[in-house]
């Protein structure tokens, strides 16, 4: 059985090539790595990274948790964190937090579609989609807001020197939000990019 992101159909329609990535069918490229990467560097790009591991952590033990190696911790509320990690590290990270006291962990990898909007124009695009002040969001900071009329968690996770925003929305809205992002980005030259360009630009994986 293969794992498919909510955009599998949409990516196939646009002629993406797929690759197996930790059991996920992920778009590896849409046009060519060079073209996609240069779009990101010059203007902006968006990638479907729904395969990223995500854990919802609640409970008294959350504030004192040291995130396991290879994971990134995001503060969502009082005693409420989100942990992200690469798909390959998912099980190791889960095992490591499950042993921590007073933490209730729920695997929400499947619950959120994740889109990475990267590039010098990324803030201009997000400005059209959300009232969150993305300019005030420093690297590794996060916020929650309405984005394209649905609830979103916005994680700022720069790719090298390029500003990058990881947008998490409920999986069932994936296609709707993806289309809104592409529409908002049209005037800035936004194009989708695949796993290969992501890695070339410094995406861990």
């Amino acid at each position, binding site marked *: *059985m*293969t*794992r*498919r*992101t*909510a955009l*599998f*159909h949409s990516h196939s329609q646009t002629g993406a090539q797929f690759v197996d990535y930790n059991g*996920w069918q992920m778009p590896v490229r849409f046009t060519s790595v060079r073209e996609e990467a240069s779009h990101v560097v010059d203007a902006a790009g968006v990638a479907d990274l*729904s395969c990223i591991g995500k854990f*919802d952590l*609640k*409970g*008294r033990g959350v504030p004192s948790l040291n995130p396991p190696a290879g994971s990134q911790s995001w503060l969502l509320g009082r005693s409420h964190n989100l942990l992200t990690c690469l798909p390959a590290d998912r099980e190791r990270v889960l095992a490591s937090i499950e042993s921590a006291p007073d933490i*209730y962990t*729920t695997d*929400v*990898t*499947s*619950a*959120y579609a994740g889109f990475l909007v990267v590039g010098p124009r990324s803030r201009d695009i997000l*400005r*059209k989609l*959300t*009232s*969150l*002040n993305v*300019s*005030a969001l420093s690297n590794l900071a996060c916020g929650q807001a309405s984005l*394209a*009329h*649905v609830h979103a968690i916005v994680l700022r996770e720069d790719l090298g020197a390029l500003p990058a925003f990881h947008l998490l929305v*409920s*999986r*069932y*809205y*994936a*296609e*709707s*939000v993806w289309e*809104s992002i592409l*529409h*908002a980005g*049209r*005037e800035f030259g936004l194009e989708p990019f695949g796993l290969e360009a992501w890695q070339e630009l410094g995406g861990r994986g």
Partner: protein
Amino acid sequence: MGEPGSKIEFNFDGGAVQAEPGDTVASALYRAGRRIFTRSFKYHRPRGLLCLSGKCPNCLVNVDGQPNVRSCMTPARAGMQVRHQNAYPSLERDFLSAVQHFDWLMPVGWYYKTLTNPKMWHAAEPFIRKVAGLGDPPPTGSEREYEHEYRHTDVAVIGGGPAGLQAALDAARDNQQITLIDDQPELGGHLLYRPGSNASVKDTIAQLEALPNVLILRRSYSFGLYEGNLLGVLQPEPHAKAAERLIHLRTRRVVVATGAYETPVVFPNNDLPGVMLSTAVQRLIYRHGIKPGKQAVVIGTGDRAQDVSTDLRQAGVEVVAILLAESVVKAEGAEALRAIRTADRTIACDLAVICGPRVPDIGLVGQAGGALAWDASSGAFLPSQLPAHVTVVGEAAGVGLGPAVSSIAAFNGGKRSFVCLCSDVSVNDLAAGIAEGFDQIETLKRYTTSTMGPCQGKMCQLASIGVCSRESGRTFGETGTTTARPPNPSVTLGALAGPRHHPVRQTPMHYEHEALGAVWLDMGEWKRPRYYATPTCSEERACVEQEYRAVREAVGLIDVSTLGKLDVKGPDAGKLLDKVYTNRFSDLKPGRVRYSVLCDEAGIMLDDGTISRLSAGQYFITTTTGNLDFVQQWLEWWTVGTGWDVHITNLTPGLAAVNLAGPKARDVLQKLAGQVDLASASFPYMACRQADVAGVPALLLRIGFVGETGWEIHFPAEYGPDLWNALLEAGREFGIRPFAVEAQRLLRLEKRHVIVGVDTDALTSPFEAGMSWVAKLDKDDFIGKAGLLRTENQQPPQKLIGFIMNGPAVPADGAAVVVEGKLAGRVTSARHSPLNGAAVGLAWIVSEHAAAGQEFEIRLDTGSGRARVVDEPFYDPAGARLRM
């Protein structure tokens, strides 16, 4: 003016119009000789350019299908299609201008006075609807794109005149983030149309443009200041692909530097084309290089009258007289100004230049909660109290407004001395309103509609206050102003609505359904298959019946991913569920499932669902599709303050869910879940297990909404397409069919299963719905217990009953139930049941007729039909098939 560029051409009412670089639509039309720009709202009087600054209603046109566009604020663009509005057949010959001869029929407040009789209203309505309103709505299906943008700043400076530029520069030096907003394509404010050097301003603009912490928004209208320092800013044509952009600007401070604008003076026929404000004349001369007329009478005193006279002479206009407003008796002319008459002479002219009162443009101050006070020396209402985050600078604050000028000339009687140009309200109309008792400015406004038109009081507020204070014997200060409200200037509904993002929710198997021929049903934001149109069935009922038979006779598969799914963890999870749901859950054994409803404090059913206990400290809740958010919030709400260790996580988007049901369901599932014994002895009805299905980790719930042996299978959404197809493949040898919402509704109706929110309403208790077993009244306190105890032993006034039709007809959902000729209830759901060969359904009926076997009448689309109350489920009343 005078920028390099070449002439362009656009279209007005079918003819070509040449425009110079820097021209607006209005200036190009004026240059081409047009003097009548619009016809007035009520009397269809000719109107020409008056303010040339986007403040008055006189130049509204239709541009490319968009009505009420201010032509003086719209740069001319090659190929644009401009049309006049509110005149037929043309601006020059407007049949409805005859209306002004019947003005005696339409006194102020004439709707209320004349159309008092319903018959008269019905007779007049079609005509009024045809002529009322201003402009035609844009065509439906218009391709115009509207954008929204969200920005944040430290200081928003509104107005790019000298005061605003200086304020922006001062604030920028403090290293703050500045947003400077101006309504013109070019910064500079009134200096743009004043002759002479403005080198220092050019320098300030250059400095601001070079600063990285300054954002300049040109041709942008600040139309409203809302709660939380949210400023609404509208940008027409922000880029080639968008018609309008609405900017939500959050700011820490607001600097109002909007300046002052000139307003008219009231005298008879003061609305004739050719009567123009002095600042408009200066804009024509200095912004557009247009000679505004041949012979001008200047009406005003002092420096302003002298200055504009000099400007006119330099532009080649003969200034035939400079008059005090007090000496003007009337303007003469029919379709255009011909002369100005004083007490002793008539002065021929084609232009009357009014040096009118100057009004600070401070609507935003009022919106922000600031107070205004009358300042007699400048003849204006000025900001007197400001909220902490608002500053007003420059002419908007009254600096350099100059001496007071009266809005009302000495001769101002008669019915053609217009105060409100938008709605044709004259001095006489206002005086009549005051005489009738509407002598407060706010009630006078509502009664006469003065200040309520497209200009939103900009041109008429001061004169209205003037007439009101004179007629009621109060001072200006005592009379006060009307309330400033956004939006001002007006904003299109499209801009407020924004881009066409309609969030849609798709289940993980969306495209599998599409490939199977799904006919879609919109359920809130969700897309769900209503039924599958396959080659073997021709219309809905046949398709639904095939799906139905597959479930009853073999096996069916339905996508139920839309169900709400909540994970509840923690040692106190059982306590919370006992408190919130009516059923008992703390004693539920791990591996078991229980059904329950959820009630409000009064015992009204709010939702239902199954709750499975996965382990000692973990439960899995399903909710109805539409109530997920509510149930989650409700659970969280009742946790607050308890100190209980319980945590709720929404799993809905992350889990795909299907229901595999039918006599062959076990055979299909066993093929894919070999390691689990699915036999009833080890996996009974209302049990749950976590197990792999085709290698996918899944939660299996043995429950049966449709009344057959079946499993609800929840599994990670990313496996949706593959597992769905694997189940269909495994079921092929058993005759599996996908089934959808319609077949499910029919199947559950035969089982008499209620859908909360469809068969129940906002007043339904479990007792009325025949579900008293679900309320455990012997439990400790729970939400709704008190309400349920109160009604426990009462006969409910009405009951939800099952019924079967005596004939072949299928009543519509909502059809009326009639007993002895009287309305006695309504049908909530009914479908044709292949099992019974007749329609079965659920209905509300008054309790005395709710006994099993009683007959009643149901109103049908044509005629009526007989039905009979049935107590038990129509299908498998003992539930044996569920347990097989």
